């Protein structure tokens, strides 16, 4: 009897299409976020994260329609991130059917935005996304900093202090991505994840670096993650959500099976 750890597939979308598409079984349209979301939900995903990387203003309207369509067919929690900069952006996404929004860069440039958002909409729907990168040298005590612009721009802000501050301001959950590991398939930055998870009271979603199912297990058992987010291992059909859940459950992790 315990709360289950969550598996969250992440869809990166540009102008309403899943970037790079997915390659698992017999899907009709490999770029359709609605169909892909439904398939993941049927396969046992505990939540869906939809990351909008659309740059154009017109594209944003497409995103809203996509979120509406997903919410009309998928009855598990849906988080929408990317380009959330104003209270109106949040309201638009919640009205479209998102359960949570993920705030990243806007929080770094204006931390009070997180406070206002949590006060207005409640902490339960405010996820703060943190992109962190190790800045300490080999042999030094480990230290991580917040980076923006896809990990290119350092901010000088300590990642652990930042996480604590965001929680104080009302973040209900932290989506933590290691920019060192993102795309490497070498596993989560477990030390980073554990340091932040142990420092704050709210759930942590580990992200960045998943290449196999043992990485998911390590994220929970060693990284103290409450949820694990992955994209490519699921998109490219290397593993199904069901296989991931079974694997984790066999190693003693409480899962919703």
């Amino acid at each position, binding site marked *: 009897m*315990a*709360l289950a750890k969550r598996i969250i597939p992440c869809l990166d979308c540009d102008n309403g299409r899943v970037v790079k598409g997915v390659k698992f079984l017999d899907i009709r349209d490999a770029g359709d976020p609605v169909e892909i979301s439904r398939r993941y939900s049927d396969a046992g995903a505990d939540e869906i994260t939809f990351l909008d990387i659309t740059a154009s203003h017109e594209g944003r309207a497409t995103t809203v329609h996509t979120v509406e369509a997903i919410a009309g067919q998928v*009855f598990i929690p849906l988080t929408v991130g990317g380009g959330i900069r104003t209270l109106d952006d949040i309201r638009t996404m*919640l009205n479209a059917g998102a359960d949570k929004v993920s705030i990243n860069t806007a929080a770094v440039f204006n931390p009070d935005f997180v406070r206002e958002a949590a006060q207005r909409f409640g902490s339960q*729907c405010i996820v703060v996304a943190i992109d962190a990168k190790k800045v300490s040298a080999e042999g030094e005590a480990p230290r991580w900093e917040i980076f923006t612009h896809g990990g290119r721009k350092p901010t000088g802000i300590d990642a652990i202090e930042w996480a604590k501050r965001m929680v104080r301001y009302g973040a209900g959950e932290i989506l933590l991505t290691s920019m060192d590991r993102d795309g490497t398939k070498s596993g989560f930055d477990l030390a980073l994840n554990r340091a932040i998870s142990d420092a704050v009271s*709210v*759930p942590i979603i580990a992200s960045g670096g998943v290449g196999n199912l043992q990485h998911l297990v390590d994220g929970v058992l060693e990284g103290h993650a409450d949820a694990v987010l992955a994209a490519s291992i699921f998109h490219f059909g290397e593993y199904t959500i069901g296989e991931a859940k079974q694997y984790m459950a066999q190693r003693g992790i409480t899962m*919703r099976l």
Partner: protein
Amino acid sequence: MNKVAIIDYGMGNLHSVAKALEHVGSNARISVTSDAQTILQADRVIFPGVGAIRDCMAEIRRLGIDDIVAEVIRSKPLLAICVGMQALMERSEENDGVDCLGLVKGQVKRFANARDPETGDPLLLDENAAPLKVPHMGWNIVQQTEAHPLWAGIADNTRFYFVHSYYVSLAAGEKAAGMTHYGVDITAALSKGNIFAVQFHPEKSQHGGLQLLRNFLAWNGES
């Protein structure tokens, strides 16, 4: 035609509840509304809620939803969800203490079962004294503690999706329909006459949640 009113008092995402009801109820006509007439003329009513209880209660009172809910439960089924369930209770500890509707006897408490020895801050610990995260967010087991038409077709100990930092603790004499454990025992569902209330989100709980909503659309109240 099955008329369902979802009470809208400006707090949070009602789209999800409406979409889930549309999905399971092909003959349901769903209105999202704060209009007293529409609510009182519906066959059944949903009382949702998210966010902070003080703001919720302020809007509930400002829009006269308190009187409408009291009226509804005299004559038709009401499903309260999350903060909607908490609002039915007598009082919540949230926001330094807020009086609620008092339609069900009991309190809404902050998740805590210990205190930090240094700071005195409330803590929530598991059976191994390891800290648990608050909010209680994710899929947890609901043990059905009474037979009820809203549990029809739902296996005992099914997992539902929760997201909350405060929980309902019923007074003696009130009836829990489902219990969940997260550091402490929490009332996951309660029933009282025409009221069925759930702390979890059926509209986000996939098969089990959709079945509960389907059951609600067929329930005529008073178990």
